[in-house]
């Protein structure tokens, strides 16, 4: 399987990595080699073999619905690169949240 520069560009976009064209070139070569090696997995394990996602064969781990102390807003925001009014500040957002619908709320102040 060879990877086109376009494939690699698309993957870099999905992974939010701003790679230069040179980096993309090196990356396509290296990814190609690694994937060619990894493709050996196709030589064994037919589709009827179940997948193992986890070495533990356990289930039903949960906790009781009992509140635990949260961090203070100060602690939560302490490592933030930018914060304002008790919130994490980010540059403008292009595009809507594609998953659970956010509710738009007007900014006050």
């Amino acid at each position, binding site marked *: 399987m060879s990877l086109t520069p376009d494939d690699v560009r698309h993957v870099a976009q999905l992974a939010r990595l701003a790679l230069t064209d040179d980096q993309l070139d090196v990356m396509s070569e290296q990814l190609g080699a690694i994937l060619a090696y990894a493709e050996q997995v196709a030589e064994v394990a037919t589709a009827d073999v179940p997948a*193992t*996602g986890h070495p533990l064969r356990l289930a039903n781990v949960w906790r009781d619905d009992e509140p635990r102390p949260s961090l203070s807003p100060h602690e939560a925001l302490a490592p933030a690169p930018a914060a304002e009014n008790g919130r994490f500040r980010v540059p403008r957002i292009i595009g809507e949240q594609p998953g659970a619908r956010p509710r738009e709320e007007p900014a006050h102040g």
Partner: protein
Amino acid sequence: MAEDSALATSSAADLLDLLDRGETSAVEVTRAHLERITKTDETLKAFLTVLEDDALAHAAGIDQRRSAGEPVGPLAGVPLALKDLLCTRGIPTTCGSRILADYRPPYDAGVVERLREADAVVLGKTNMDEFAMGSSTENSAFAATRNPWDLQRVPGGSSGGSAAAVAGFQATVAVGTDTGGSIRQPAALCGLVGMKPTYGLASRYGLIAFGSSLDQAGPITRTVEDAARLFQAMCGHDPRDSTSLTDPVPDVMTGLNRGMEGLRVGVVTEMMGEGMEPGVRARVGEAIDRLEPLGAEVVEVSLPHVSYGLPAYYLIAPSEASSNLSRYDGVRYGLRLDGGDTEQMMAATRAEGFGPEVQRRIMIGTYALSAGYYDAYYAQAQRVRTLILRDFEEAFGRCDVLIGPTSPSVAFGLGEKTDDPLAMYLNDVYSVPASLAGLPALSLPAGLGEHDLPVGVQLIAGVLGEAVLFRAARALEAELAFDATPRGAHALDAP
């Protein structure tokens, strides 16, 4: 009063004896190690953070309690180094990455809590391959750690800082983490004991994730007994980790010295084939030859799919990593680069904050999970994982322990493999299978190979088979009588 040099080279077991008998104090022991760090770490570059004040304060508290007849923990006064991907409250935890260069977690990792309760004295945080991705510690954003046996060579990785600190007598014991061999391989390359517990025995809470279904923390020490003590203290159920086992932690201390008698040891055919250095083959072969005289029954076993472990691993671990590392986006913590909008900010931050190997693995993982490729790559690798699990299950129906090499080569030169990712990945070929199956595995020194550098021999046990694993390792250790002091023309000076 014991000499500083003796304190630095003592095992944890010996230090605990000295401390118990009042022949030294925790402060004295701590100071001896801090001095050793001061003297050697400019060369070795094992530590990213040294916690001089905290360590001395903790040691003083231990001495006080001990002299007041109050209880102290089972590792009271033992100098400990922590790999820098274990969260430590208020203390820098960088994961070897620029993206977390200034990050101070608001909490202690589960295993750190347990080790603090055991009164091990945390000396500092050790260097590592960025996000534990690598086999040489050269992928650290901050420094390349040196191998105390040869300062021009790598200590292995990703827990290379922890291994170098213990081999260089800067710390008595250390904690590393192992995803595909990151404890066992540096231990092998530095002439140490390195052990990865059964998946689920050591809490992953506060262990910064690389491959979540594979990651386990474990001890790196100079003796099997120290590894057993550290294992015993750091493992145990943690309700904050859904994948933490509730089974009791195997008691590895009681039967530690019972010897090899009656154990069935399987030599893994597929691990003794091509691909390893002659010196490695020779030392591992000799170790195997010692087993029968020690009273073990030696059998050949086959793990037919084990050679597919590495390709499967290099799909599974990067896939999980690509998702685990998404959170480093410049929003809530860590590095941020400017960008006109949030998407650009994130992409710029990640391109700048992650090194090339991390970016490569994020790319592989993202690709392996993406639409149209998931089944051929990720899902297929998970099927191969099933075959490997079945191979091991069958083998452990016949054997108590499996034996083979830890790493195909002794420590390689700095810069030797950095341009060839795939060559670097091959370091993990013998360590990855136990990781995929979640099995406990241990590397111990088998002697010296090429360039008179240490060779590791790997023991693997079944799920929760730690008691037999440590017991076999202890018996082999006694027989091989390896001297863990780095020596040779390019070695770090001993204390």
